[in-house]
């Protein structure tokens, strides 16, 4: 069904939101991704992915409290929804099941 599939970057962001758990706003997510991978992206890309994910219903967001260091503007914190969690589980399961078939195949081709 439409909207049920997610791309690689979307999956990465979704996972990161889950991993950060609290205080997951765009820059924090970007920072986390930068630390864990070597991807070079900018904050606008993260924003656009976040909007897509929210539209698909995998994350929800709420505005946080006022801040000092960003011109007094509030942050938008994202958290996983049930559907988002389920989506991650499904993709993981799919990968694992495929991955489990991998060694045999590899050895047989090597021998």
């Amino acid at each position: 069904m439409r909207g049920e599939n997610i791309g690689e970057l979307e999956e990465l962001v979704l996972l990161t939101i889950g991993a950060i758990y609290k205080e997951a706003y765009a820059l924090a997510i970007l920072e986390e991704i930068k630390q864990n991978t070597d991807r070079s992206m900018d904050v606008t890309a993260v924003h656009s992915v976040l909007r897509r994910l929210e539209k698909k219903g995998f994350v929800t967001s709420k505005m946080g409290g006022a801040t000092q260091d960003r011109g007094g503007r509030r942050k938008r914190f994202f958290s996983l929804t049930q559907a988002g969690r389920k989506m991650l589980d499904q993709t993981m399961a799919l990968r694992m099941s495929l991955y489990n078939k991998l060694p045999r195949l590899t050895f047989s081709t090597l021998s």
Partner: protein
Amino acid sequence: MSQNPPKWADRFLAWYCNPDLLEDLQGDLYEVYYQHLDQDKPTKAKWLFIWLVLRSFRPSVFRRTEHHNNSFLAMTRNNIKIALRVLWMDRTNSAINLLGLTIGISCFLLLGLYVKQELSYDDFHTQKDRIYRMWLKEDYGEGKIFFNSNTPLRFERLMEDNFPEVARAVHYIEESFLVGRGESRIDERVAVISPDFFEVFDFPIGKGSASNPLPSRSDMAVSTSYANKYFGDTDPIGQTLGVEVLGEIRGFNISAVFQDIPTESSIQFDMAISTENGGDLYGDRMYQAWFSIIPETYVLLKDQATIATVESKMQDVVLSQMGDANDGPMPRDQYNIGFQPLTDIHLNPAIPLGFAPVSNPQYVFILGAIGLLVLVIACINYTTLAAGQSLKRAKEVGVRKVLGAARSTLVYQYLTESIVLALMAMLIGILITLALIPTFNVLTGSELLYSFDWSHFAIFLSAGLVIGLVAGAYPALVISGFNVIGILKGNKSAPGGLNVRRALVVLQFVITVFLISTALIMRDQIQYLMTKDLGYNYATVVTAELPRDSEADRLSTIISSGMDNGELIKAKLEAYPEISNVAMGSHLLGSNGWANLAYTDPNEVFRRFRLLVVDANYLDAFDIPIVAGRRFEDGNGLDQRQSILLNETAVSYFGFDDPIGKKLPGNSFGEHIIIGVVKDFNYSSLHSEIEPLVITQNIIPIVQGVSDYDFKDSYSPKLVFTYSGSQLTDATEILEREWEATFPNEALEYEFLDQRIRSQYENEARMNKLISVATVLSIVIASLGLLGLIMLVVASKLKEISIRKVMGASPFTILFVLSRGFMVQLLIAIALSVPLTLWFADSWLENFAYQTQIGPGLFVISGLLAIIVSAIVIGYHAWRATRVNPIKSLRME
């Protein structure tokens, strides 16, 4: 933190961003900004912020603006949908409308492209606004005026040395040289240009040094196509090309290849050498002369300078430069130098012709006007048809109004229909135009090129919109103005504005009949020019320019050496029985710009006359009759030395009663005597009157007596002969054979005189073709409109016809009833078109010294043509209407 991100970027973000998303997005961007600021990278922070703002500019972030414009967009979509359905529902009518508009638009676009090309000559030079061509006008009073676009050679220095406003002055000269590799040489036009010529004009250098394409006097620049012509695939740079300069073959080194010069350039050349050869070609003395003109001089002004400041200083500079060199100081305002903007050259016939050809602006205007007229006819078609159809839509309008549609909404809806149709027509019209450009070029002999540019897209789109608006405005107003109650009650009286529609139909007919008459008049005039008795016989006359000795450099030696060469081949040609009347002369009949001489006679009257140098047989070869005295006798030594003939115009111009045995009025002429008078003959084109003409065999005594001369036409002698055989190709074969035997190293260029004479009216013939095509198209469009109207009339009068039939009306009565209205309109239109046509024809015929007569017969023909076409269109439908079965149309009520 004191520093803030760039304000404009921040505002821009706030402007496009959806307010719901703004706060956190902006906050994140600020945070990134401040992070970089903290790391003491203010510039990077700033640019990064701008970059991020621009990167965020994507649809998912955009403000949702549906709320404001929603109804407008939705209604437009709805209107377009309805328009398409309506057009589809009434397919016959839509097809007629579409076809009419498409033809009109194609015609308009083609002619528009032609006009645009003519108007955009020389527009491609980036410095065009600062480039001027110089002209020189010597005015000594009493009509003694010498006005030229060619200037003395010293003007380049004059401008560069004395005017700080002038950035550069360059020369441009067209010369003819024999060019070739190895033995064979052909006559080529070679430009002689200043070394910095390419700095002024935008003729891009493809190969070779762009900064210095002509480094020395032995270098030559050629165009891409000529590089190909002479060197094929080998690299032309560094190759040599032999050019015969003043009798000596010099090798020129190809130093640069420039791109072929576009059609829209006044300056056209394929080979160029440097003016450093000028001293050799023209002599160093010419660089000091004030009164001998050779090159066109172009000046490039500096960035801020204006031409007015240069002009205001000109007289003082000229007078101080000239000094007392010419017996006493030059009076003020006799020696005038002026400037013409580069882009003005192509369409300004008021300035004399230089090397650059000039178009007639009248023709450009006429073609533009005709394109517009055909488009107007097409628009009127739509207007009358749509207004006529409006009754069919009455119920729809009524219901819409009851449901609360405002009048403006209805107008908008009906305009959408016409605009949709116009845009469709525009699209098809563009495709047709593109497909027709090659045919158009063949037909008109023009070199129209179309290169797409995105700006054209906007032009086409807005043109389509305008056409749709203009054509649809009136019907939309009529339809939206219907009275609701009347309509819904079932009142079927025709809507108002019948008179407007009638007037529009009349206007359409006026334009059509006008175009028909104009095309006929033009054809008449061209026919008249082609067939007018020119006073001489030129059928089957072949001519060829004779070679002259390369040492000959003076007027008299050029002519005499050419004539001597002519004698060599003359005897051989005369041996053929089918060749007769072999003769030689300095000018050809049917060419403009014969030698024009001028002097001041003993009574202080300034006199100008044309001069023709001939051998004894030239006049006989063309059957030019003598009205007084005698003709030249072959072999008469006295005739060869001193006898001259005048034409009738010259006799009255010089004021002779009986010129025979007299001399020309003038003190310094050499020994000469008038022995006869020839009947006037039209030696140049029929655009101009016959001018006084002196015919001589010996040029010297005449030249001695004149003070000024100019030659716009080549004066090296030409061979002419009449061929009486049946196959003209045989004539050229004989000529080629004998030429090869007599002048083995000279290229032969021959032509037939009748072709040459006909080619003088090429422009007119081309115009006539274009107008004829436009006329046929306008007839087609008008017939389409008529077809639509008659179908409408028949449909609305079906009951009337049926009742008449029941009462016993004959088919002819019914035919008459149906077509009466149209015929009246047509007759009014024919009457109205007469003065319009007369006015136009008069102003066009002013171009010619000899004009055809416009008789009433012409209007009868064009009127009849219009009536017959309309009768055919109307007749068929009206006739079908008379065949209807009354029962079918009457039983419903």
